[in-house]
């Protein structure tokens, strides 16, 4: 099935076609399940003027935070952007625009983008600054906001295992936003820890079917822990 073989051999190839001014959707929550090496490749490439849609923007020096170092991001769509001094500086300087979006709305916007649903109603954010400039509508005597979907030129995703057809499974809570971003990229690139034989993944356990995936690459991951919490032994 040559036509379905999505594995690429280099990170350069994985991110080929990414251009200044594009929109990139990134999976991950905090530093968990982030596409570390795809982010590093965007830094290496030096692509500028990016709009990045991701729940967070990494930390200083790791994750999406590294794209701030050369001011590659001009706009960030996120639910939470703390833990990042450079982010704060660029935001206060006006070098960086941020669109704060409730976490569940952000997740649903990506899912809707991938699913051909241009807009949906949610009670989340009614009566708050999030509602500014948005249409509202009553359903069953309650007010809801119209939220529009999000799609990206690229989606960058971190999986656990994938086969050559781009069927992906995620590991534990590293799933988070990854399968949502995967559906909503014009070009969806997935980096994984392991490539398995086609047929090895149970069809009923695949989190992201290959139809959503354009490129797959296998990488090495640091998997930095943001808040190391352990119990007494």
């Amino acid at each position, binding site marked *: 099935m040559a036509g379905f073989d999505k594995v690429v051999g280099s990170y350069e190839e994985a991110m080929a076609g990414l251009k200044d001014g594009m929109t990139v959707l990134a999976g991950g929550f905090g530093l968990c*399940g982030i596409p570390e090496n795809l982010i590093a490749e965007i830094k290496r490439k030096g692509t500028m003027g990016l709009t990045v849609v991701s729940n967070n923007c990494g930390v200083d020096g790791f994750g999406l935070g590294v794209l701030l170092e050369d001011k590659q991001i001009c706009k960030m769509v996120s639910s939470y952007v703390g833990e990042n001094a450079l982010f704060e500086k660029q935001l206060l300087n006006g070098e960086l625009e941020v669109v704060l979006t409730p976490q569940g709305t952000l997740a649903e916007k990506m899912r809707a983008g991938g699913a051909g649903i241009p807009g949906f109603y949610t009670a989340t954010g009614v009566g708050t*600054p999030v509602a500014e400039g948005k249409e509202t509508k009553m359903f069953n005597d309650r007010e809801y906001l119209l939220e529009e979907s999000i799609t990206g030129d690229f989606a960058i995703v971190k999986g656990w295992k994938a086969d050559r057809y781009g069927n992906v499974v995620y590991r534990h809570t590293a799933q988070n936003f990854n399968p949502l971003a995967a559906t909503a990229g014009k070009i969806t690139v997935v980096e994984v820890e392991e490539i398995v034989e086609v047929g090895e993944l149970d069809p009923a356990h695949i989190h992201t079917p290959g139809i959503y995936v354009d490129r797959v690459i296998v990488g090495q991951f640091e998997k930095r822990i943001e808040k190391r919490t*352990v119990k007494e032994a």
Partner: protein
Amino acid sequence: MALTREQMAQRVAQELQDGFYVNLGIGIPTLVANYVPADMDVMLQSENGLLGMGAFPTEETIDADMINAGKQTVTTVKGASIFSSAESFAMIRGGHVDLTVLGAFEVDVNGNIASWMIPNKLIKGMGGAMDLVAGADNIIVTMTHASKHGESKLLTECALPLTGKGCIKKVLTDLAWLEIENGAFVLKERAPGVSVEEIIEKTQGKLIVPEIVPEMVFA
């Protein structure tokens, strides 16, 4: 005496019921997990995509791929499930979580809550808080009754930008357990040793004080 953080968590834990699915916010709400009664089981939902959050791991079992919504490394309990953030917020937005406990800066007599943004301070974002307050029927807000400077956080109208409108019905402060009904706080219980007068003094929004306001009872 004002309640300690631990006592606040203990009081909230009295609202738990066997079989409840519960989402606990960061801070005092997190501590509630330590006071689940022994004869009761609850399952903790974490909005990044986990139902059935367990204790912190050991140094041996720690795993970067297993975290909670507070980004802390955690474990799972038996019977846990893990899913995408869209599925997680489908549960939350769809009202499937039985109890949500979260902190706030202010609440008001109309059940409005402000918890995420202080103008002219750096805004870090709302995370999942807006979804949580809009999605849940049963929410307990935990916060101190007044600021360090004595300014009430139970208001006629929230001054800060809202997290949610008309969402809140139950508030536990370090001084009192209150419920919001018909545009007023109703004083249901007071912290042991705290006078009704002090609560009246520290509540800016309309407060209804029943004839008898029992003290909270801790096991």
